[in-house]
């Protein structure tokens, strides 16, 4: 057996000066809301990696739904509400304005305040004050972004959570080293949870943001682990003969849907985490895999080759254990094209992002479940692993660019695109936590 390089690190909140994951906006701010964010006033030295207003500006720009004014274009820099001349901002074409301040307290802690103004109405929309430490300034900034985003779009913000992803670095000396990493949604504070010279796949966040489930080949075959990001404690959940793959958390966090082939064929099962009991979901000669849960927990959407090639199906689960789920017939969802797989469901359960293959071109498509209408979101050619942001407005996915494996994001109207480039090696399989634990 190959020697396995393996280390499991406790996830300790540290703050690296450098973001290894860089995020660039690549396309389109048409239709974005104009907003002016005035640099917050600091009563002491500004913390380099805690520049609150700069982080808010970056978050809102990255969402693709806002077009923040560059600092050099700011016509004024009001610090207090009474300093604001709304007429000037109206003339400058700004709909909204954000001002704020960061006060360093005698005990070394901070107080962060911000106010959001409606320029047209000349009134404050909301304002909050947050206690912070030097370490939590970034998180506070992301919370402010969430507040502003929600106030102006009606959607949850998803800035103050985390993303997980797999990186692979290959070189002639060490071969291939895979890492499971977690970072803030803007790529800062990357932390490595697992390092291995065997593959790592399919990381998924628990609904409460405290754990990841993933597939690790560290013992020479696929196994499913859950991993607490704060304590670093791992639990082996599935190591049956054959496949152990494609974990997906139920919305209440008590179960994992997964793919096993121990009964002779890849099928979907539900594992109850409390007692490790298994319930079989599919019983068909075809490949059944890539199950994900609908937000109400009542059905699964999965990939099956039962009609010849991979297509998406929906299976409604009965409540209670008496009914044999394997007798329930899944409903086919995709009929366009010969390859439709790897679904991700939006937080409100209305949309499905998935991989659509046409010849050798694989791209991300979006289906409205109520109507089954599908639109193509990306052009491919090797796009995969679509993951909805925990709101309903953006899809993260893995793609190839100039022979580099990178992560990218696209808004659900297809108009706003961004690239999250890992500066070392390949990045793939993003998962976006719904909440920050």
């Amino acid at each position, binding site marked *: 057996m190959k020697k396995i390089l393996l280390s499991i690190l406790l996830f300790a909140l540290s703050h690296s000066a450098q973001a290894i994951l860089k995020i660039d906006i690549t396309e389109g701010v048409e239709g974005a809301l104009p907003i002016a964010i005035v640099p917050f006033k600091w009563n002491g030295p500004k913390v380099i990696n805690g520049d609150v207003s700069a982080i808010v500006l970056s978050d809102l720009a990255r969402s693709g739904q806002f077009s923040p004014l560059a600092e050099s274009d700011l016509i004024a820099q009001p610090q207090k509400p009474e300093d604001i001349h709304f007429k000037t901002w109206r003339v400058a074409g700004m709909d909204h304005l954000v001002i704020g301040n960061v006060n360093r307290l005698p005990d070394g802690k901070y107080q962060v305040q911000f106010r959001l103004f409606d320029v047209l109405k000349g009134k404050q929309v909301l304002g909050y004050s947050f206690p912070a430490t030097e370490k939590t300034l970034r998180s506070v900034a992301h919370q402010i972004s969430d507040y502003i985003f929600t106030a102006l779009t009606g959607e949850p913000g998803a800035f103050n959570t985390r993303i997980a992803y797999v990186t692979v670095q290959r070189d002639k000396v060490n071969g*291939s080293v895979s890492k499971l990493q977690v970072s803030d949604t803007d790529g800062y504070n990357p932390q490595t949870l697992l390092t291995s010279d065997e*593959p790592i*796949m*399919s990381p998924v966040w628990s609904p409460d943001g405290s754990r990841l489930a993933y597939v690790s*080949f560290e013992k*020479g*075959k*696929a196994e499913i682990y859950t991993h607490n990001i704060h304590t670093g404690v791992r639990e082996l959940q599935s190591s049956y003969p*054959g*496949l152990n*793959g*494609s974990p997906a958390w139920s919305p209440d966090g008590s179960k994992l849907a997964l*793919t096993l*082939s121990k009964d002779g064929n*890849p099928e979907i099962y539900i594992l109850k985490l409390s007692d490790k009991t298994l319930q079989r979901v599919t019983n068909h000669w075809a*490949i059944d*895999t*890539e199950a994900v849960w609908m937000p109400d927990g009542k059905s699964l959407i999965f*990939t099956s*080759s039962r009609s010849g090639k*991979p297509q998406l199906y929906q299976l409604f689960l009965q409540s209670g254990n008496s009914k044999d789920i394997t007798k329930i017939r899944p409903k086919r969802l995709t009929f366009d094209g010969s*390859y439709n*797989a*790897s679904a991700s469901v939006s937080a409100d359960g209305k949309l499905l992002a998935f*991989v659509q*293959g046409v010849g*050798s071109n*694989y791209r991300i498509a979006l289906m409205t479940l109520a109507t089954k209408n599908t639109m193509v979101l990306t052009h491919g*050619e*090797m796009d*995969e*692993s679509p993951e909805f942001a925990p709101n309903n407005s953006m899809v993260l996915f893995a793609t*190839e660019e100039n*022979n580099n494996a990178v992560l990218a994001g696209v808004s659900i109207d297809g108009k706003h695109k961004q690239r999250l480039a890992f500066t070392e090696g390949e990045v793939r*399989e993003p998962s976006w936590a719904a909440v920050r634990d």
Partner: protein
Amino acid sequence: MKKILVCIALSIVLAACGEQTKTNDSIDSDPSLSGQQQGGDDRSGAVSGTIDGEGVAGGSALAGGKLVSYEKNAIYDANNVLSARIIYFAYDSNEVPEDQVELVKHHGKYLSFNPEAKLRLEGHADERGTREYNIALAERRADAVKRLMQFEGADASQITVVSYGEEKPISFGHDDESWQLNRRVEIVYE
């Protein structure tokens, strides 16, 4: 347990084949094994190699002149047909291609004659398509190889199937050539 194979009488090798005692139907009917030679005993199923140092005439049964032998150490011999350890698959197919069935059968026979021997079949897929689906596809390929080996007399307990899907490519291009090299099942003796 399988017993000893028979040397079909060819010129030079008769001396090495003095110990055969039984015939095996499949040898008689399978012309590709005409050059095969086996020493051995009839104690247990173990085949001990007694290939005479004079050389291995008759190993010309296969193209490339590789020796066909299932004695225990055959898997360490670079000149043996068993030294080929990769089966390549056609696009969108889980069946062992015609031109590689023979090779799989040889490995199956080796297992059948060496009940203590074990191997791992590692299934792989090319990068196209989704990762978890490719894990399932690659397992199907390895399963197909396993079934063929079992048909030749290998026991299921001698074969472990592991799928790596597209996670362990050996070629990194985005073209047909690379994809073909990655669509494979690797035989790894343990």
